[in-house]
């Protein structure tokens, strides 16, 4: 659920940030069962070990108070037999040793369980997302995808680590305590148990209320953080427009809003412990008053029973508190898992056939046979396109935004299947081939290439991870990137990153050429690859480009005439139809759409 934060005071409207507001989802069994499926692989290994270890230490915790009260206090101490006392002490020590081992094993194995489940779940989600279409990524901000893979999965970590075991342990503990107390002294037990519902109330309702107020704080905090982030990135604009004071006033306002909601939340939180203390106090008072009364007037109740009770009364709160937390945790897990499953239920656009053919070595002969395609029902992106690209040919696609250029490229890559007609490479319908094999043979060089953090060497090697250092350097030499790389402080070992300013736009472009060359595809698609480069660099890059395209079927999507004019074939598109095609000279002679496009570009510039 997204909601725009409205600031209280009017001057706080200066910036507006939208935030995800975490809402509790109603408990959903189906979702829980789906989550628990990830535990299944460990149902015969880590899980039972952890459970047995937990049972051992829980049993010790329950038995010792009974031994101390009913046996040591009531039976051993009155005899004055020091040897008997010693053997009881040794016996209890042995039990504690057992519990020590149990705890150690439990802590170790619940973590093994939790971490493995979280790893599997995250791996599943990440791998699934890799296969989703470009559309999926176009419609979402990078941040919202990352939040699901990282934060949403992490918020399930505690549930899978301690949650399941604790739920079991606390239920067993609570029920056992009640039973033991009832056996030891039914009257006293019944009297003291009035605190259980009070504690449950505090642990669930009060805690929920507190959690709500912390949610408010987090929402405010994230607004503060969004603004801080933006104000740092936009500081140059702020200073050029002398808006420092106005911004400071705005920040003071949101900072104060945060402070106020924070104050409310801490106040509510500070009330939690006092309530717990008071509920404990009620139990203790009942024990003191009614307990001592029973011992004095009821022969069945002993001093040892009283001692046993003092132990157990202090043990009520822990399991109840954790069960309450568990309840809250489950509700939060519901909203996190709903978001995770939403991604997992997202289907990839194209499906591989079971008997798909491997496509290893191709010639690069591309055919479109009456291809029709639409992204959604009401808008047709391509109308019955038929075309042919011969191996080694360079084909340019020309047209305005939305004319269908990128769609043709997407179909060749089989990011989508045509709604009608067929796309064939070397005579094979793309619907019959294995995706990986197909895409290994195709590289796309983009206008805005991404630089991964790491060395230059690693960045080029991204094109083919098993390439040797020599192959990487050779590729860089061929596209003319070697010169500038050698000039960098650490050469090929220079560390770079996306937002670093070590590389200029032209140099980044050369790196992406080297990447593509290293991948050695039979088909190459250049998508506006040279748009953001200055003239002199572009001239240098033209040479590299020629070397890159040599011997490959190349599809060029470009606005600049200089990149298009040397193509073997130029296809002019408009609204998903081919208007005309031919080489530069033919089309210029024809004086059709292409001629008009070329002319208008220069006319535009001349008008200025």
């Amino acid at each position, binding site marked *: 659920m997204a909601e725009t934060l409205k600031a209280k005071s009017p001057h706080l409207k200066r910036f507006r940030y939208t935030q995800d507001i975490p809402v509790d989802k109603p408990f959903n069994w189906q979702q829980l069962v789906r989550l628990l499926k990830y535990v299944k692989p460990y149902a015969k290994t880590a899980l039972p070990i952890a459970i047995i270890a937990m049972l051992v230490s829980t049993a010790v915790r329950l038995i010792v108070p009974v031994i101390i009260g009913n046996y040591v206090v009531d039976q051993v101490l009155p005899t004055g037999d020091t040897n008997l006392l010693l053997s009881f*002490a040794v016996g209890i020590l042995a039990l504690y040793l057992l519990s*020590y081992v149990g705890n150690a094993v439990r802590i170790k194995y619940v973590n093994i369980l939790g971490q493995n489940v979280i*790893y599997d779940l995250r791996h599943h989600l990440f791998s699934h997302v890799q296969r989703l279409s470009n559309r999926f990524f176009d419609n979402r901000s990078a941040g919202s995808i990352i939040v699901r893979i990282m934060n949403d999965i992490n918020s399930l970590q505690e549930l899978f680590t301690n949650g399941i075991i604790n739920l079991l342990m606390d239920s067993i503990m609570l029920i056992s305590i009640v039973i033991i107390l009832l056996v030891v002294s039914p009257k006293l037990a019944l009297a003291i148990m009035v605190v259980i519902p009070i504690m449950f109330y505090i642990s669930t309702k009060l805690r929920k209320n507190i959690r709500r107020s912390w949610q408010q704080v987090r929402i405010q905090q994230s607004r503060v953080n969004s603004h801080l982030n933006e104000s740092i990135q936009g500081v140059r604009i702020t200073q*050029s427009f002398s808006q420092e004071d106005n911004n400071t006033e705005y920040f003071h306002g949101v900072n104060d809003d945060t402070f106020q909601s924070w104050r409310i939340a801490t106040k509510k939180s500070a009330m939690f412990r006092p309530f717990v203390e008071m509920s404990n106090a009620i139990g203790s*008072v009942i024990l003191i008053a009614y307990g001592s*009364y029973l011992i004095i007037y009821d022969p069945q109740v002993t001093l040892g029973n009283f001692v046993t009770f003092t132990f157990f009364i202090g043990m009520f709160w822990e399991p109840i508190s954790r069960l309450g937390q568990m309840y809250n945790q489950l509700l939060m897990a519901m909203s996190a898992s709903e978001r995770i499953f939403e991604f997992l239920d997202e289907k990839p656009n194209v499906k591989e056939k079971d008997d798909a053919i491997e496509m290893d070595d191709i010639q690069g002969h591309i055919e479109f046979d009456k291809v029709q395609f639409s992204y959604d029902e009401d808008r047709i992106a391509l109308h019955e396109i038929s075309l042919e690209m011969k191996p080694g040919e360079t084909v340019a696609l020309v047209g305005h935004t939305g004319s269908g250029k990128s769609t043709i490229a997407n179909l060749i890559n089989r990011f989508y299947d045509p709604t009608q007609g067929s796309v064939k490479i070397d005579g094979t319908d793309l619907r019959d081939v294995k995706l990986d094999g197909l895409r290994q043979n195709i*590289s796309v060089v*983009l206008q805005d290439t*991404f630089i991964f953090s790491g060395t230059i060497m690693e960045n080029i090697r991204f094109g083919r991870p098993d390439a040797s250092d020599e192959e990487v350097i050779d590729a860089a030499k061929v596209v003319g990137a070697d010169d500038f790389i050698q000039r960098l402080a650490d050469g090929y070992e220079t560390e770079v990153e996306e937002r670093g300013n070590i590389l200029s736009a032209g140099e980044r472009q050369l790196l992406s050429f080297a990447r593509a060359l290293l991948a050695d595809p039979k088909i190459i698609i250049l998508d506006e690859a040279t748009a953001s480069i200055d003239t*002199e660099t572009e001239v240098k890059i033209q040479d590299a480009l020629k070397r890159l395209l040599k011997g490959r079927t190349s599809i060029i999507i470009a606005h600049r005439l200089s990149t298009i004019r040397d193509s073997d074939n130029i296809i002019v598109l408009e609204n998903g139809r081919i208007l005309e095609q031919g080489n530069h000279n033919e089309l210029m002679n024809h004086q059709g759409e292409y001629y008009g496009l070329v002319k208008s570009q220069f006319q535009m510039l001349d008008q200025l």
Partner: protein
Amino acid sequence: METFKKLKQYYWPYKRYFFLSLFSLFFVVLTTVAYPIVMQITVDDIIREENYGLVPVLSLVFIGIMIVKSISTFFHQYMGDYFGISTVFNLRDSLYKKLQSLSFHYYDNAKTGDLMSRLTADVELFRFFLSFGFSELVRITLLVLGSLSVMFYYSVPLALVTMASMPFLIVVVRKFDQRVHPAFRKIRKSFGRLNTRVQENVSGMNTVKSLSREDFEIDRFADKGDNYRQHYLNTATIWSKYFPLMEFIGNICVVSLLGFGGYLVMTGAIDVGVIVAYFTLIWYLVGPLMNFGFVINNFSQSKAAGERLLEILESEDEIKNASEPVNPQGVKGHVTFNDVTLTYVENDDQALKNISFDAPPGKTIGLIGATGSGKTSITQLITRFYEPEQGELLLDGRPIEDYSLKEMRKHIGFVLQEPFLFSTSIKDNIAYGNPEASMDDIIDAAKRAQAHDFIMAMPDGYDTLLGERGMGLSGGQKQRISIARAILINPKVLVLDDATSAVDMETEFKIQKALKEVMKGRTTFIIAHRISSLKHSDEILVLEDGAIVERGLHEQLLNNGGPYQRIYDIQYQDKEAILGENKQHA
């Protein structure tokens, strides 16, 4: 302690909350220690003496104690938190103010991520120590002292025997802390690497898909994910070794209490009630001791965090206002550079070398040259974002250092290559430099920037929200909004820094048309790659490695045989060729 002293001005104003919290803490500890005493009295003086008459008094006293405990617990926690969050409020305001005023030079070397982590994580660490860490230290000390006094009061030998294994606990806790904190840091680092991996994967998805490297990416991710799991499990192993051991040592105390205490009861040295009281008191010692390492660690972390905050707060504003700044009135926009040299980082190459030119009011200066040749540096000196190493910069004949910084900048409008827009409505983005502007002025500016039509075509028009979740705008649209933003302050000097490089021809044409209109009557600096954008300039400066290598009018430079002609030839070869061919066939 130096760090805390330096940061005193941020938390000391709220000292009374701190002292109130400490004052309440005193009662919390006092009432905590009272509980085992009450139990001892119940067992020894009521049950064993069969003196039921004492029960009502004791119950009332006990409830009274618990009420005091509840109230003081509340105030201890609330006042402690109040102290912490008030400091955060104060600190954040100061940090923000500082960040708004720090120079471009500072930001050249700062990373957003690093600053953000200081503003969030470090502030939080510092707060946690103020709110919780320090008073927890006091609480542990008081509780340990209080419990020990009660124990020794009851029986010196029993106290000594019961506590015999405590030194071992201290050793174990120390060892645990020494191992667990580095392990936690490794988890955090490993998680950071996993996060970076996912972030790069998602941000670079186009590149991943274009080379179909999904499997490679999954492998790299699995590698980082496994690393995180491994680090986490290593820490869990440390945890599983030490934590049960600490509990076991506490339990050894219970056993020695039972053995030796039982013996003392048999000999009549103490009563049973003392043992009952001891059962509680033991955990008052063991619990805090187990926590001690955590608090100490928090102290050293918050000290480091405080230092990082001080680094921001104490960094100097390099660009200073004149002591008696002149408020520019009726600026004409006459910009003069006399022999200006600029170096960004000491001992580095000069970014600008002996630049001189004169831009009279209303004239246009074109700047052309390769990336890194110094075009942008010139424009950033005009606004005093940096200070020149030598030379003189004049605005209307007066050194720019004489002017009030903010007032002077209001007369200079900037349009940058990558337009930065803020998360607010289109309207407020246009009015960013002049929040008081009327709606008519805003629309007028948008019209002149050729932005009005596409803004009106949006569902919410001028109220359309921008930002990560807001409407996605194309590069050209953003650029036109940033042009409108620059016009709205009605600047006398306008800087267009490569404003059209990232857009297609048609959009460029639209923007150029818009610019031509808004340049009228302003001194304009145009930085561009395309000759067509700046050929009408009154003077064109061709830059190479920070020096002016050619200057003059378009017509003069065209046949000068220099770099300008070279660029022209490349850009217009197509035109000659195409239009030439065209004529032949016409």
